């Protein structure tokens, strides 16, 4: 019996890639959470925004997040790490950086120009927080595929941020 337990427990250690670290885990967990937050905003923005540019950016972000969630989840499973951050890890300061339920309710409640303005503000805020996460991985990660994905995410987000700021400037 003891041998059986030992065998099960040792299997992941033998098969797991050697080169991941805590930052990679945190990156994958935070990116998944931020993408889920962002998707709630983008789902509304992609259908309800009056400005077609906002709808296009929101749709494009949703596609990107869907695609990226594949490797992010796969890595965490392979590393035998939870898909979400441990409870309590965001109690200090970090929860303020997440999408507030009240903000989502605000977006649902407004229409017309106010909807577009709120959607742009929330998409920008989410992307800025995401870029902090992807840059953390680029500078502190150990797992090359995760670092590469983070770098690609940074570029993609910065491009959408630029486009959103052009829209915001005229709102």
């Amino acid at each position, binding site marked *: 019996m003891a041998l059986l337990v030992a065998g099960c427990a040792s299997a992941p250690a033998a098969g797991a890639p050697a080169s991941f670290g805590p930052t990679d885990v945190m990156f994958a967990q935070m990116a998944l959470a931020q993408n889920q937050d962002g998707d709630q905003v983008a789902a509304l923005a992609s259908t309800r925004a009056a400005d077609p540019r906002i709808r296009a950016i929101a749709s494009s972000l949703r596609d990107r997040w869907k695609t990226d969630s594949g490797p992010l989840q796969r890595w965490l499973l392979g590393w035998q790490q939870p898909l979400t951050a441990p409870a309590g890890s965001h109690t200090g300061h970090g929860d303020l950086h997440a999408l507030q339920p009240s*903000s989502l309710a605000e977006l649902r409640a407004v229409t017309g120009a106010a909807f577009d303005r709120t959607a742009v503000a929330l998409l920008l805020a989410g992307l800025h927080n995401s870029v902090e996460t992807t840059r953390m991985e680029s500078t502190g990660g150990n797992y090359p595929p995760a670092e590469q994905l983070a770098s690609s995410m940074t570029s993609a987000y910065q491009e959408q941020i630029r486009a959103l700021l052009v829209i915001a400037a005229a709102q």
Partner: protein
Amino acid sequence: MKRRFTLPALTVAALIASLFVAVSPASAHGYISSPPSRQANCVSGAVPNCGDIIYEPQSVEAPKGSTLCNGGGSRFTVLNDTSKNWPAATVGQTVTFNWVITAAHSTATWEYLIGGTLLASFNDNGARPGATKQHTVSMKGFTGRQAVLARWNIADTVNAFYSCVDVNIGGGTSSPPPTTSPTTSPTTPATTRPTTPPPAGGTWAVGTAYKTGDVVTYNGVSYRCLQAHTAIAGWEPPNVPALWARA
């Protein structure tokens, strides 16, 4: 055997947990997106070569009370660089500022200043901002090119978030001239004269090449050109004594 294999797992979990605590998210909260602040103009690419601010325009955090666009300190000093060609948004006497909020922190006040003059202060009494934050602020008679400094004073820390917005304020009527003069003075006088000289008594206009002795009107007052130059926003006659004297 069981113990031997559970210990490393616990150690890794503890390490990760401690990292979540130690590596707290960067203190980033917000900035003004419209009219575009200096950091927004860096991120959008309107102003190149800004450095790391393009990745975190929301992070211009420093102790409260600074009058610098970067809030003082050594980070993001590019925001104080007046030699950068910051685009100025054309605005009227009333300007609506829109913020992007990346962390909904408990807020003391939002302040707007030009030079040392407080244009407006909004007291949120510790409330947390929602999805958006918008303020409508009077320019209090300031005209021409100005840098509006916005300070978001956080209620539960010693810090504020800083955003400078360059504006070109038009529509001034018989308003008092700004107390601050432009930080840059014309260094290269216009070498070419206008093909058609501005009509005598014409209204001052950006882009016009003026020569010494030209007389223009601005806000109903006549000024005589002291030095040949091509007018740009911010060089309105009452603002630049080196270029214009009352006629």
